[in-house]
């Protein structure tokens, strides 16, 4: 009887310990309980239970600790300060697989918060133990260990380097080849975290032959695995041309394009990121992406996606177009400009707009042909709005300005330039006027259109400082037209806001047919109108005659009556 009583006490003790850890583990799943648990000093109570003789209690205690540390970095710090990590690391090498899994969970939860905490995990020698766990047979343990290693390597290059030095990479590459999807997924994610910091680390990952295994999994049906695979490939290829070429040589390409149609948006985003990272290095790599139809696929993908998912696609188009003019032409031919214009309208966020604007600048800056393609998509007024909008971020404004400048310096598509004459500030107007002053002296058709559309009048309204570049451009524009017209326009431009409506009415009503008339017709027309007789009409070019008629129509005054003022 006494023996039974004695044993009963022990039994009761064990039972209540079990109950305690289980309750704590259960409570730790809810975030609202965490604070209460913390105040109750749960970490110091769980610590001795990690050394308990009963495996279930140990495991449950580790699980509870992991959940607590997962929740906030304060608790994770408390776990570190409580000196629990060395115990965990020690038992990570000793205990059974369930305990290993729970311990790796705690390490992961601690390491995920900040570089300092991850460093603390590294300092207590967790890496070697975790690497040993990667060699474990059980997939759950492998997964937990790979996960913890990934979280440690995620923070910075030093931590990542220490993970690599612990020899984790070959084992992670082995994990990538496991049959279990979960293990593969976590291993790919860890490889991605390791290789993202520096070219050397990425090279280490590549040296173990990871690319071939990663490339095999591109067409795997599991979306989450694909996400990690593409993320790893893009992190590897982002560093240098060599690495990008190695990724390309693994024959990623036509297959990866298929994933741009994946229902999972992160898969699509990561594929686009991979393409961006590859295309940004050299013109040759961009050419390769273009030749396999990547640009068309990305443009379709931009149509399918929304918001942040679009960003890498937009940047990829920009990078491709930046390299060479024929690559930029390829983007235009693949209907990239209209798609980007849609993005510019649809996306509310500034950074995406900035990327889009940058891409436009890269596409349009090569030749007049490119600039024309961009300008005829009616993008320039939007760029100007973004530049002028006080609500735009500084970056967006700077990018808009650069893009506008680059495009305007090449643009010869005058109908697109004319709206900018009205509302552009002087630093943009300078480029617009420069383009006009270059084109108008050589193109009579453009001169006519310039007057009929009211451009010349707008030019007269511009207030430029004497001697500035803008003034010079305006002067050279004015020199293309007869002096009296310019004078007249300048004289009237002050008080003739009312004439603007007349102008528009007449432009619509009777000017456009006149453009098609020949010189003789014009002369006859003038004489019928009894506007001009004799020397003023005879020997003038059709342009000039046409302009006379135009001026008449604007101001509704017979020019013959005020001919004296012209002759002055």
């Amino acid at each position: 009887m006494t023996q039974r009583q004695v044993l009963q006490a022990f039994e009761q003790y064990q039972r209540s310990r079990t109950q305690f850890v289980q309750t704590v583990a259960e409570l730790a799943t809810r975030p609202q309980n965490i604070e209460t648990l913390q105040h109750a000093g749960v970490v110091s109570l769980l610590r001795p239970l990690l050394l308990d003789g009963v495996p279930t209690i140990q495991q449950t205690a580790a699980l509870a600790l992991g959940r607590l540390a997962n929740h906030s970095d304060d608790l994770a710090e408390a776990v570190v300060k409580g000196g629990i990590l060395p115990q965990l690391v020690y038992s990570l090498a000793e205990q059974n697989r369930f305990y290993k899994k729970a311990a790796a969970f705690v390490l992961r939860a601690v390491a995920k918060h900040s570089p300092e905490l991850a460093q603390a995990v590294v300092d207590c020698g967790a890496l070697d133990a975790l690497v040993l766990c990667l060699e474990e047979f059980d997939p759950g343990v492998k997964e937990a260990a790979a996960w913890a290693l990934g979280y440690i390597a995620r923070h910075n290059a030093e931590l990542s380097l220490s993970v690599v030095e612990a020899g984790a990479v070959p084992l992670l590459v082995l994990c990538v080849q496991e049959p279990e999807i979960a293990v593969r997924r976590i291993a790919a994610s860890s490889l991605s975290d390791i290789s993202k910091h520096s070219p050397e680390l990425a090279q280490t990952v590549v040296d173990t032959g990871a690319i071939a295994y990663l490339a095999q999994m591109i067409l795997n049906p599991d979306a989450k695995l694909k996400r990690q695979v593409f993320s790893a490939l893009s992190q590897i290829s982002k560093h240098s041309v060599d690495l990008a070429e190695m990724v390309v040589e693994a024959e990623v390409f036509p297959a990866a394009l298929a994933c741009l149609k994946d229902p999972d948006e992160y898969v699509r985003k990561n594929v686009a990121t991979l393409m961006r990272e590859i295309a940004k290095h050299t013109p040759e790599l961009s050419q390769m992406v273009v030749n396999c139809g990547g640009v068309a696929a990305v443009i379709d993908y931009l149509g399918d996606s929304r918001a942040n998912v679009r960003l890498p696609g937009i940047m990829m188009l920009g990078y491709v177009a930046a390299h060479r003019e024929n690559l930029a032409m390829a983007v235009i031919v693949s209907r990239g400009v209209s798609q980007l214009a849609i993005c510019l309208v649809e996306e509310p966020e500034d950074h995406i707009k900035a990327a889009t604007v940058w891409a436009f600048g890269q596409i349009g800056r090569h030749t007049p042909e490119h600039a024309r393609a961009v300008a005829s998509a009616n993008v320039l007024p939007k760029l100007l709005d973004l530049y002028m909008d006080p609500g735009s971020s500084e970056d967006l404004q700077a990018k808009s300005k650069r893009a506008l400048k680059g495009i305007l310096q090449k643009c010869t598509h005058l109908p697109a330039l004319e709206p900018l004459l009205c509302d552009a500030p002087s630093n943009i107007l300078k480029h617009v006027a420069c383009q006009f002053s270059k084109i108008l002296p050589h193109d009579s058709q453009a001169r006519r259109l310039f007057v009929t559309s009211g451009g010349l009048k707008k030019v007269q309204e511009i207030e430029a400082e004497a001697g500035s570049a803008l003034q010079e451009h305006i002067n050279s524009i004015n020199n293309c037209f007869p002096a009296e017209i310019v004078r007249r326009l300048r004289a009237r431009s002050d008080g003739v806001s009312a004439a603007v409506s007349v102008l528009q009415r007449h432009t619509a009503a009777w000017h456009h047919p006149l453009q098609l008339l020949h010189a003789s017709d014009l002369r006859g027309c003038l004489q019928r109108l009894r506007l001009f007789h004799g020397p003023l009409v005879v020997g003038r070019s059709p342009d000039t005659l046409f302009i006379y008629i135009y001026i008449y129509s604007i101001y509704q005054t017979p020019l013959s009556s005020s001919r004296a003022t012209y002759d002055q």
Partner: protein
Amino acid sequence: MAQLVNLLSRIERVREEYFVRIRIAEENRALEHAAAVKIQSWFRGCQTRAYLRYLNKKATLMQKIWRGFSARRIFRKMLEAAFFTRKMNLCNQMAVRIQKTWRGYYVRQYVHNYYARKIYLEGLTRKNEEVRKTLEEFAEFQRRMREQERTEREEREKCILAQKMHFLLSTKQCPGVYNSPFRDSPGEMELRMRSAKPPLAKSPSRHKDRIGKKMESPTEAGSATHLPPIRTKKPQGPFRQPLEVWQQRYRPLEPTLRVATSITALEEAREELRREEWRGRVVDHPFHPFSNTSRQSEKYEPLIHASAPFEQVAYGTKHFREEKKEILQEKEPFKTVFTSCQVFDKFGRLYSNAGKIV
């Protein structure tokens, strides 16, 4: 003589005249001298002037010739230079023309070939269309596959539901819930239930498996459901914890080493060893020591002074066991198998029906 007298008579007069003439000469001397000087000075002046004029004329001539010479030389040089410049300009113009033509040709042919570029862009457009179409088809295919999978899954779920609710099937006497007598045809669920079979009663083995799993991995990361439920209220009475009862009830078979070992284990092990040896052998011919000596068949004769009466028994006839069995008859045989000590093996893990720890 008369002449002489004539002369002498005139001498006086001559003397006189002589003196007169001398006086006159003396009187005119200064005047004449001055005149002579004047004449001479004029003459010399004329002469010198003529000479100077002559010199000047010669100097002018010389200067004229020299200047003409040097000016012609300079002019010739200038002309040459002008000619050269003109020639150079022409050459430059022609060079520009040639270079311009060549560069235009070269660029059009090799650098920026308009037709090649056009063909490339057309090819690219075609390729883009192709890629777009392929991707569209692929996406459509994937979508269809997903759709199919989803319908299959729903079908399976419905089947399971039908199995579970099989008891609601209508009988001959009484229509079921899904078979409304007011409808002319039974509902979909009814039809499904007709074709489904009721689920089998849960076999204990499956239950055991589940429990076993539960017991095995109570600490799966992130799986709070795997923990046994925490009871808030203890049942009345001196009951053991359900966990403990489960453990006891479904504890796995723990055979002793003797039971766990096969009866033919020794033979198997020997066989395995032999096979291993056969497999791992490098040379097929067995090794015979001294196989090539000539005196192979001869018996070994020991030296006389090294010989002893205690000869070694021939190889292969040596025995390590006791040969005299009668000595061993009183001894107990050596025990090769021990029973395990139950108390230590199962302490704390089992309890008897009487509630006693075994």
